């Protein structure tokens, strides 16, 4: 597997990985805000968010129809849809694509659920590797507390209840998350994760993230071109809006 840079894509992909409650979504959101403010072409994509597949996934989850195999495949379908329809064209167009979870989430979760690792990895091998993968590593207790404090009701699959680890959802969640963390740690070297200490405060982490991104990616190459001049007006008596004038001035 190669990264997008190694495959000569003009765009770059940055992924964040980590347990629920590791703070990765906050960090990637703040990164997005910064890149946008810098005038960089940026796109954000979240795990399990394809419109096309959503109905099937939520039905499967609600009615507890999913087995480890179908759980894995339906998430792969979701990923493929986002990958082929959004990520690839945007990366061809020179965007910086930010992914909240990437294939490593599947590698960790599906394997914990009992799917053969080679099978899961093989199914995702159409995807190139991120140019940067940030792994937000927390002590298990820290991320457990963050989740369990704020959201007392755990969903069936989220808690790993399908694995029958425990009849108590909280206990099940703890064991499940612990096993996922082991998988992430085991993958860290192989996939060159940048390991972030997610126990420190949010601002400090964001500083590190921004510094790292600007060191690894030559950001000025990803700026939008200055706005294109507007096409000549078709109607001679067209009403000019203030925005229109501003756009013209900017051009």
């Amino acid at each position, binding site marked *: 597997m190669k990264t997008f840079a190694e495959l000569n894509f003009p765009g770059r992909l940055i992924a964040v990985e980590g347990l629920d409650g590791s703070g990765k979504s906050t960090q990637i959101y703040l990164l997005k805000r910064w890149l946008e403010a810098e005038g960089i072409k940026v796109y954000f994509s979240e795990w399990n968010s394809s419109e096309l597949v959503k109905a099937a996934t939520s039905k499967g989850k609600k009615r507890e129809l999913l087995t480890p195999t179908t759980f894995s495949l339906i998430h792969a379908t979701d990923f493929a849809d986002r990958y082929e329809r959004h990520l690839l064209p945007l990366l061809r167009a020179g965007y910086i694509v930010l992914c909240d979870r990437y294939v490593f989430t599947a590698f960790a979760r599906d394997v914990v659920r009992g799917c*053969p690792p080679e099978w899961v990895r093989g199914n995702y091998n159409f995807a190139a590797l991120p140019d940067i993968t940030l792994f937000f590593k927390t002590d298990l207790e820290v991320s457990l507390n963050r989740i369990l404090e704020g959201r007392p009701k755990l969903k069936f699959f989220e808690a790993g209840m399908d694995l029958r680890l425990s009849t108590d959802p909280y206990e099940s969640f703890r064991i499940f998350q612990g096993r996922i963390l082991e998988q992430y740690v085991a993958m860290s070297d192989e996939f060159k994760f940048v390991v972030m200490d997610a126990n420190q405060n949010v601002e400090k982490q964001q500083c590190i993230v921004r510094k790292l991104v600007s060191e690894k990616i030559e950001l000025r190459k990803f700026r939008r071109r200055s706005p294109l001049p507007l096409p000549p007006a078709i109607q001679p008596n067209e009403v000019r809006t203030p925005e229109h004038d501003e756009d013209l001035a900017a051009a």
Partner: protein
Amino acid sequence: MNTSEQKNGLRCFYGHGIPRVKLEDLAGKLIVVEGADGSGRSTQIARLVDWLETGGHPTVQVGLKRSTLVSKELESAQKGNILSRTTLSLFYATDFADQLENIILPALKAGFIVLADRYIYTLMARDMVRGMDDGWLKNLYGIAVKPDAVFYLSVQPQELVQRNLSKNATLDFWESGMDLGFSRDMFDSFVKYQTTMQGAFRKLQKTYGFTIIDGNRPVGSITKDLRKKIRMILAEK
């Protein structure tokens, strides 16, 4: 198609298989009928079910896009023609896996005869024609349990066109491979697509060794042929 393993009554998966399944418990028989739309698959399966049930064998039928999990969603996604090839492929694989785990494997365990109106081969052939990697497909469908028999009803594309038109007065978008851009003309596209699909099946036949049945013959003589072959499978063990 029988490997020495299966002649000894031993089941196997094509690849990594499904976790925690005891293959030796799968006592039933899995019989697959493959072929294009209009090849006579459904007719033959209906006749086989009649014959088997009259003979006292319990049967279960499965087919493509029949899963509880994704059949409806897959159907509606296909209507919009916005599915890219990997997504389409994985969507069908999900549909297959759902039926495999919830119908095929439990039925085999209960000693049923499972009749599959198409199996992984059609799915693989479709994807191969669309440029998916053979190795990727082999890994993906390594979850499938190896059937006791696979019959491929081979019918000339020109004959398939006639049968489809006389039945529906139109050709199906996907069965005509319209997404591949062979031709804007649906008739031409159908013939080209089905010819390409037959090429893919020939390639798969070398790996998976299914029995090719000449589907250009009258319905009755095909049924007779199939019964004879299935009788032999039922006599094993």
